[in-house]
């Protein structure tokens, strides 16, 4: 297994290199960080030229890519073009916030989706099944940003009307976050709505997927065998069907991980969270080529990492998959 992990990591290196080059070409040719500055009549041409030279903006793409790779390895992705802020420390701070969001959302998604999916399949055509089907269709049709806004409207109005603060609707912490348990509680109050917003669409999708997967497995020959052996129904479902049905879901969850990072762009914008998503939008608006590059690279590495975790989990679930 260790060799498998090492091999997978080694394999991902060329993928990351190729994708970084393509993205770099794409981003660098389409963004111009000095666009705004050039428009201003009072900024002098020489200053612009100096910034251009310092950041190698006047060089061909290949050469710029070379400089970028050098920066990425030796100077932690370098500095922003305007303001010369080091990129990596900012990014890591924001990654901490985003990881809290993503991991909480993923855990919530898997727990709820698996529970709902399994129960719907076992009680197929029941009232529970119908309700969950309807809810999941709704969940799949709601735009993430709109759900966020609606939740904000609801909870702000609850606060305004009754003065009850159930969940906060913006930001990561209070101005005075407190310490210990107080800190934890107010942090959770801040994160509940964003996590729910981020997770809704996946919960809806995955619970349908889990239900379908479970139904497929429940009609499999080996489930008939398990029943024919005289096992009790609960054991048939939990020991024989569940584990098999989980395999496709885990595969899907792994493939989808990148989507979740994309989702944080919207969620963090709506809730004003200082995470990776917001950072990305800011960089995009500012034309900060190197921040966008660093962002895409860090997320890619994250996706590769979580895919690997999912593979290892799959290896445990399915003995037919051999990790070596």
């Amino acid at each position: 297994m260790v060799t498998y992990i090492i091999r997978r990591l080694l394999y991902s290196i060329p993928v990351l290199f190729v994708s970084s080059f393509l993205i770099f070409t794409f981003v660098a040719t389409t963004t111009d960080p000095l666009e705004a500055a050039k428009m201003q009549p009072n900024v002098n041409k020489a200053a612009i030229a100096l910034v251009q030279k310092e950041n190698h903006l006047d060089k061909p793409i290949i050469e710029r890519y070379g400089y970028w790779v050098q920066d990425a390895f030796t100077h932690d992705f370098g500095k922003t073009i305007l303001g010369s802020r080091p990129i990596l420390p900012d990014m890591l701070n924001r990654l901490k916030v985003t990881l809290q969001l993503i991991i909480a959302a993923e855990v919530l998604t898997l727990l709820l989706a698996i529970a709902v999916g399994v129960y719907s399949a076992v009680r197929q055509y029941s009232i529970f099944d119908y309700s969950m089907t309807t809810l999941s269709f709704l969940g799949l049709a709601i735009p993430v940003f709109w759900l966020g806004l609606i939740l904000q409207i609801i909870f702000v109005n609850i606060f305004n009307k009754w003065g009850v603060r159930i969940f906060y609707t913006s930001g990561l912490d209070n101005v005075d976050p407190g310490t210990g348990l107080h800190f934890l509680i107010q942090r959770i109050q801040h994160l509940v709505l964003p996590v729910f917003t981020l997770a809704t669409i996946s919960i809806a999708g995955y619970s349908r997927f889990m239900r379908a997967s479970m139904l497929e497995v429940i009609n499999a020959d080996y489930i008939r065998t398990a029943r024919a052996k005289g096992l009790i129904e609960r054991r048939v479902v939990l020991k024989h069907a569940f584990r098999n049905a989980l395999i496709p879901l885990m595969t899907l969850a792994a493939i989808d991980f990148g989507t979740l990072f994309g989702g944080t762009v919207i969620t963090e914008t709506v809730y004003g969270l200082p995470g990776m998503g917001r950072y990305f939008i800011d960089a995009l608006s500012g034309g900060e080529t190197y921040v966008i590059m660093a962002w895409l690279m860090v997320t890619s590495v994250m996706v590769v990492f979580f895919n690997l975790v999912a593979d290892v989990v799959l290896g445990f679930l399915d003995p037919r998959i051999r990790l070596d």
Partner: protein
Amino acid sequence: MTEVSRPPEPGSPDAPLVDLDGTLYASGSQVRTMPGAPTDLAPELTDSALAHESGLELKARSQWAYARSRFFRHRLAMGSLVVLIAVLLCGAFAGHIASYSYDAIDLNNINAGPTTTAHHYFGTDQLGRDYFSRVLYGIRTSARVAFFVSILSTILGTLVGSFAGYFGGWLDNLLMRFTDLILTLPPLAVLLVAAARLGNGTINLGLFHLGQEYRVALILALLFWTGIARVVRGLFLSLREKEYVEAAKASGSGDVRIIFRHMLPNSMGPIIVNMTLVTAGAILTESALSFLGFGIKPPTAALGNLIAQGETQMQTQWWLVVFPGLTIVIIVMCINFIGDGLRDALDPTQRRIRA
């Protein structure tokens, strides 16, 4: 997905694994051979004269006729189709239905809640612009984008997917590597980068001067086609091994003819189903892009940018956010229900869903 309403279809994973299949559906195209269950005791003789004579009614229905009747029986899908058509017609004839133009200012009714006075059914914003009218025009924009995206990505995806699946080789390799690449990147982020800079404004093709919705649609299509390509590739990989394809090859049909005459018609079901998924996805993604300010930009009304404009005052003027959003939800739900009905009708074995 909503097999909930009916007993399972034959051939679906929900279908009972009993010994009935040969007989039950022997009359149509639905004969499912169970693996390892030989039918050598049931020599098939599809002589209709004989069947008629014997008093056995053999209904020779085509696959499409089956699909049609199954779809029409799908009440939810039919209902959704009616609603969707109604909504789209409202969008198409926005100019005739709306009481106001989308940017007309009614200073007598500023920040009005939903009311029937002066026909401001969905309320007005701080400039007194009628949100009902703006939503109608927004539907038109969003529908245009979605339609264009689904057509473009389906054509491109089907072409690439079928050639990759049929020929394999470098094209297939390229497609799969590209897919790998896409999978390591958050799709929304890639879209945003593309949308942020790929030429603001309109596309000018000499004679044709296309609005910004086509620019946005083009960018979305560049992402969405890969999904369809993967589905079609998978289908073609399995169809390639089918006997009738072998037979067509053996009888000297050319590759292009085999792809378009033999394999494509047999892949239409999943392609159509995926097309509905792409359409729903395109509406959601376009609204997100427009909301973030990288898609359709004001003054053109799109459902996403209407919500963005309403956001600043949403705590008091909730209608500015609620109605455009509800419209999106209704449209996407209808499309998904239709897609679901189509899946049940066209492709009963496929249970995969968009996640």
